[in-house]
């Protein structure tokens, strides 16, 4: 498995070099990296450009497109730091569970920051593979919340 630290190392290497293309194969994983303005970087977790400020509980936070392909799924990162909730309130059904189909707008959870509830949407269409972040625990900015198999 590629660890986050290894990915960072590769990025650092690419960052400081004149490479235009890098292919890496490791077991199931195939990694291709290209530099250049015309191609999209399919690799780097992208931060939201807009600050996820405190907003009403129902306001959907635009989640960036999934960016890390590993083990056949895409990770949906936390757009902001806070407590991650699987369901709208204690005891309620979770927003999503493994096997569910989601669209880009499907709410997958809530991130609470000091009593302010920020809903998080999937940002892409696909099938939920795993709920990665535990219910009611702190997630940091960029941490994987759930994994989705894209359609």
């Amino acid at each position, binding site marked *: 498995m590629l660890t986050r630290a290894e990915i*960072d190392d590769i990025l*650092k290497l690419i*960052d*400081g070099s004149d490479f235009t293309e890098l292919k890496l194969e490791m077991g199931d994983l195939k990694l291709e990296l290209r530099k250049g303005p015309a191609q999209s970087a399919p690799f780097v977790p992208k*931060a*939201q*450009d807009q*600050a*996820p400020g*405190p907003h009403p509980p129902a306001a959907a936070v635009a989640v960036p497109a999934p960016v890390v392909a590993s083990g056949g799924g895409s990770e949906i990162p936390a757009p*902001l*730091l*806070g*407590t991650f909730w699987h369901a709208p309130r204690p005891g309620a059904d979770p927003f999503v569970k493994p096997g569910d189909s989601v669209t880009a707008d499907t709410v997958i959870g809530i991130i*609470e*920051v*000091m009593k*302010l509830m920020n809903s998080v949407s999937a940002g892409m269409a696909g099938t939920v593979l795993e709920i990665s972040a535990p219910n009611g*625990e*702190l997630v*940091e*900015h*960029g*941490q994987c919340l759930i994994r989705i198999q894209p359609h």
Partner: protein
Amino acid sequence: MAPIRRIFIANRGEIAVRIIRTARALGIETVLGVSKADRDSLGAKLATRAVCLGPGPSRDSYLRVDTVVQAALGTGCDAVHPGYGFLSENRDLALACEKAGIVFIGPSPANLEAAGDKLTARGHALDAGVPLVPGGNAASLAEAAEVAARIGYPLLIKAVAGGGGKGMKRVDSADALATQLDMAMSEAAAAFGDDRVYLERFITSGRHVEVQILSDGKTVLHAGERDCSVQRRYQKLVEEAPAPGLSPALRAGLYEAATTYARHIGFRSLGTVEFMVDVERAAFYFLEMNARIQVEHPVTEAITGLDLIAWQIAIAEGRPLDLRQDDIALTGHAIECRLNAEDIAHDFRPSPGRVTLAWFPALPGLRVDSHMESGAMIPPHYDSMIAKLIAHGPNRTAAIATMQQALVVLRLEGIATNTALHGAIMADPAFAAGGVDTNYLAGLLPRLAGDGP
């Protein structure tokens, strides 16, 4: 109050590393809140744990009170250290910590209001009988013109919530007032989220001298003074302790004014009372009180042997200061140079980027506070300060010699730095003589560029 077990550090850069150093020595765990841009920073590696607060820009990460408190709670921290800058003097953070049952390692919300808001601070100085520079606040151009008419030109516009020179503008005549007021207010809004400013008479020739205060709310001690007169656009560049060439009477007056002020507002924590000193007239004026640890605290640590961060933590834990004024002896002389990632050949423009090589020599008497290491990335979002060199010697000449050697020997590559400027200052006879005023650097720069007299 219970001993602190885990500190959330709501800051970055060298001060995060500095706080971690003392926390490790005290056996206290640390959680560092980092922005995405600081994920791989030295502080993130040295902290017991690091959590990502948000994207690079400060307003989305380091300046978010709610996120900081949530992160501190979520990681089981029992205290928050705010460092300097960012939220360090933010009353909302202190209040939110209080509400959340977390120790804020700094003064009380009331102290922050009394000291942090510069207008209130001036009022307290008046009440305490501490001399003040003439000035007043202004929420509009009309009010500003009124104050200006009373105090005269040149004058300074300063951010009420400010510090570090941000939102500070000099106005030389009435026709420049409107523009400079606009700029100061928008800078203040951008830097502090608070556009309030006030006006103050500009002291054309003065020295910036400040007194370090330690107080447990009952015992108010000073730890000597620092001279921070070498400034560029109100940004301190070189600091030293003690201030060269002060008469014993003037020095005693400063200590007395500083402790009186701190006592007057019931201050409890570490803080600094800043003065403008007119050496010729042996006069001084209160400028402001900074209710936090300061960038230049190491020069005081060098001459006193105190670990100021450790004292700050001890006071926050509610422990009484088991020190008397006589226990704080000042030994030798210390100088600090702030190394910034900036291009002095191109109007000091910031020079963020990847540091290819970072190495500081292990010189006797030299302390280096830095978050730099080879391969470190200097993000474009923050202050350009990347290292502080602190030279301590038996006297000022020895400290300067050590600093000169450090500046020649260190390696900081991949980015532009102001190292050469520090070398020029240390080699300048006027600086060597001691006691330069706040105009000194503005005069030195053209001389160095060869287009001055």
